[in-house]
């Protein structure tokens, strides 16, 4: 009888431990989510701590903001490029990639100008019905040549 009671106690403790671990893990996942200022999807550049490209599509226009890494996703990061050429692969598309040029869209209130700008915009008719896609480009971000990978609409997080 004693053994059965011990067995039940062990199972109860194990279940409790499992539940606590799962809840902690869920909490961590919650904490790991970065806030997006422009209601777009965040795409890490290199790693999440390095920086992000926040992407939102309004109609047939793609808007992109370079923002900080970690908890700094509400802080703009300016880049020197005046335009960024994206190679876009739409989901289910087999005929190569589409080209989309994003041009610098300096934010006057943020005192930005072309060549020192964090916001970019580009338009294409096919964007309106794009759905899911992957876009790739090479940019100079924080002084280093890095690969920009956008996975729309879920975002890109290599970590």
């Amino acid at each position, binding site marked *: 009888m004693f053994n059965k009671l011990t067995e039940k106690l062990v199972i109860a403790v194990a279940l409790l431990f499992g539940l606590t671990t799962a809840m902690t893990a869920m909490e961590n996942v919650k904490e790991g989510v970065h806030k997006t*200022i*422009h209601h777009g999807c965040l795409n890490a550049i290199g790693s999440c701590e390095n920086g992000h490209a926040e992407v939102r599509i309004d109609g047939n226009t793609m808007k992109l903001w370079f923002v900080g890494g970690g908890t700094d996703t509400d802080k703009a990061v300016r880049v020197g490029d005046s335009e960024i050429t994206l190679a876009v692969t739409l989901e289910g598309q087999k005929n190569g990639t589409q080209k989309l040029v994003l041009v610098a869209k300096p934010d006057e209130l943020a*005192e930005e100008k072309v060549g020192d700008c964090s916001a970019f915009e580009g338009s294409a008719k096919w964007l309106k019905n794009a759905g899911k896609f992957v876009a790739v480009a090479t940019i100079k971000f924080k002084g280093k040549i890095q690969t920009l990978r956008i996975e729309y609409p879920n975002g890109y997080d290599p970590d």
Partner: protein
Amino acid sequence: MKFRQIVLKSLCHHWLSTALAIVSIALGVALLDSVVSLREQTHRNFTQEGLGVDAILGPKGSPLQIVLNALYHLEEMPGKVKWTYYKKVLSSEVVESGIPFITGHSYAGFRVNAIDENFFTSFEYLPGQHFSFAPADGGQGRAFSGNKEAVAGHEAARLLNITPGKTFNPTCGVNAGDPVHVNDTITFVGIMAPTGTPHDRAIYIPLKSFYTLGGHGGEVQEMAQNEEHREISGAYLKIKRIRNGVIHPGIQDLKYSINQSSQAQLVIPNEVLPRLFSIIGWVDLVIMGIALLVTLLALLFLFIALLSALRERRRDLALLRCLGATRRTVMGLMLCESLFMSAAGAALGIALGHLIVSIGGEFIRAETGLRFSAAYVSTADLYILPVVILLGLLAGAVPAVQAYRLGVLKNLTPIS
């Protein structure tokens, strides 16, 4: 003799311990009630729609400092904002209007703010509430129109005996010993009707007056004419509304853009003020804890008073039993006494609590301009009476059970 009469006679017989128990409960309840009421009213005062301001354009620095300076006339602005930048912000598609101001001057301990004249016509210190100079509302005179004119908030005017026609020389700074603009005599032309907000504790002069005050130097005086060089401390911004009076969601994009700039930031009071409460939250908890402890101590006193009363009255209760009182009657007697004392203590405490809020609120109003009402019904008002009565009954339960178990023969045995 009726049961009710027995209870009253018993309470009167032990009037001193009854009165002490009631007073101690009343003091504990009064402390708890007043602390909760002042706490809730403070929260309400600091969060009431950002005191009519959707957002504040301010210099770089602490957002809390900006809110305290712009809305509560405390602290100092951490810097200045360029007029040209303010104009750019004003042209944003989500901004409806702006009221620029300059802080940093004072008179007899009250802040003197230079402000755009639209403050008196379009600013809403609470939703739908504009400043008034009408005598029917408690105001006097009119808003300023000339350069050397000023308007005083109701509380500032009351404490400094300001009436229209009186003059003053503003101090260049907000600290004791700061220089006075001796060559700039300004005349009060109006007293604002009371608003119950910190605006009652300020004095206002026209925005352009600031640039023309002597002693500020040529550069500042040039700002009166040259917009390129003009600077302000900040501006109250009204944001456009979308459906159902909801603030335009673009305010967050505007905040993001402005906050990336090197010279200004957008502060939303309703986002900043909760942070203030999270900073001082532990003080709140400690005070509440002390108040709760005092109330519990008072109830403990009730318990001791009832217990000692029972010891004194063992023979009386035994006699009552001999005269026909049942065990239940004796037990009910103790419980009713406990109920009476706790209810009377709680009721008296609530009344006393409101009196404390009334007196304390006056002191706080004189210091901060925030209005506290003694008539405010707090959460404590709703729950304290039933909770104290329940706890009082619990405190009376032990003596009541002891009275129920009282041995008649044993307690009627001759003592000597």
